[in-house]
């Protein structure tokens, strides 16, 4: 199968998966807003949680996938692995953005402040910055070989960095205790809320897969076009 044919096929499958996920997302919204009870202490604002937490999950998944694919790429040197890693990074950036914007929107009415330097938000902020660096780097490199190798280096380094950032914030916190924060992702969620959350996480995972497929297909098609252009000249 040529690059172009494969790209077209994956784009079609990816479109179907994304469409299914978006339908699922509608279902999640309906369930969250209409059928799930309102949380006592936080009120309606708490509903953002059903988008915020799964976004963080998808972002983390994207990051780990990019890191692992980076290692795989340096080993196998197949450019499709590089394209998949890049696709995951861009999708991860999108989910990181969602997590970082829903966080403050949720936080303001509940904690009284837009931003708090807790471990999760801070780690995601740096993940966001790492993704941006990764994508900017790819943008300034023209040769696909160099681009793949340099991206892989960042991807692998980032994989090792994030646990350290998490640890840094944790240490910072224990020395500087923050005002009491509600920790809604602790297991003690009433059944209905837990079910909605899990449903949302599932839908977001499928959404991640669909987006990555579409972005990967786009990458393949771009490669195909670059090759066609180069052959013609």
């Amino acid at each position: 199968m040529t690059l172009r044919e494969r790209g077209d096929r994956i784009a079609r499958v990816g479109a179907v998966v994304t469409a299914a996920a978006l339908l699922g997302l509608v279902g999640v919204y309906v369930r969250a807003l209409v059928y799930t009870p309102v949380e006592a202490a936080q009120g309606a604002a708490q509903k953002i949680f059903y988008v915020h937490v799964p976004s963080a999950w998808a972002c983390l998944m994207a990051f780990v996938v990019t890191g692992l694919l980076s290692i795989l790429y340096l080993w196998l040197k197949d450019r499709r692995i590089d394209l998949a890693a890049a696709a995951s990074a861009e999708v991860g950036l999108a989910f990181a953005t969602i997590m970082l914007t829903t966080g403050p929107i949720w936080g303001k009415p509940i904690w009284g402040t837009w931003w708090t330097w807790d471990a999760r938000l801070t780690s995601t902020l740096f993940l966001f910055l790492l993704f941006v660096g990764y994508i900017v780097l790819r943008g300034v490199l023209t040769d696909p070989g160099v681009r793949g190798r340099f991206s892989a280096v960042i991807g692998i380094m980032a994989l090792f960095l994030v646990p350290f950032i998490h640890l840094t914030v944790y240490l910072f916190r224990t020395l500087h205790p923050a005002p009491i924060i509600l920790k809604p992702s602790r297991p003690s969620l009433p059944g209905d809320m837990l079910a909605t959350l899990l449903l949302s996480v599932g839908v977001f995972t499928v959404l991640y897969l669909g987006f990555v497929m579409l972005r990967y297909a786009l990458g393949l098609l771009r490669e195909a076009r670059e090759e066609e252009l180069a052959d013609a000249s």
Partner: protein
Amino acid sequence: MGPTLRAAWHIALKDVAIEWRTKTAFASGLVFAVLVLAVLFFSRDPTTVSSTDIAPGALWVTFTFAAMLGLNRAFLIEREQRALDGILLTPTPPVAIFWGKFAANLAFVGTIEAISLPLFVLFYDVPIWVRFGELVLVIAMATIAFVAVGTLLSAMAVRTRYAELMLPLLLLPFLVPPLVGGVQLTARLLEGRPLSDLSGWLKLIAGFDVAFVTLAALLFQVVLDE
């Protein structure tokens, strides 16, 4: 000495010789350090914020930015006349180039830090002698982290057209753990607390050093390839 160490030594010496002769990056780094220290001193309300409060942060921001000024230089000299190709045509093991550059960068950043430190004491009036030895240890450990990652990333950054932009963009997230650790440890040490109180941060920086010096050395060959 093994061939790797020998080659790394010669490369490091050569870099130091070149920097010593031109002194451009060194002079800029030093002027920059003084400026940052001074600006941060003045950018506060002196009636509510004492100089000792902001001192640790000011010191580490100074170190970080002065270091970044110098890191690109190490690989730019190799690109001027493609001297790096000359090195690659010898039997030098590629990882020796990393260690040589790492050592030279450490010398460069270390020298700037050594000169900034007395200025820091002068401007901010901090009791540095209380835990001086421990402070030097902390600075050394965090600097190793900066320089290891910075050496690897500058080797990449100089291959793009936007080296001065790409290096900070890529490097800064990686500096967060050693930087925060450095600031926290410096603050506590200046208060006179013993190092044993702060084992968490020390272990963080030590672990970071081990992980990232190893990673940088392993990944360097990937960055050298064309």
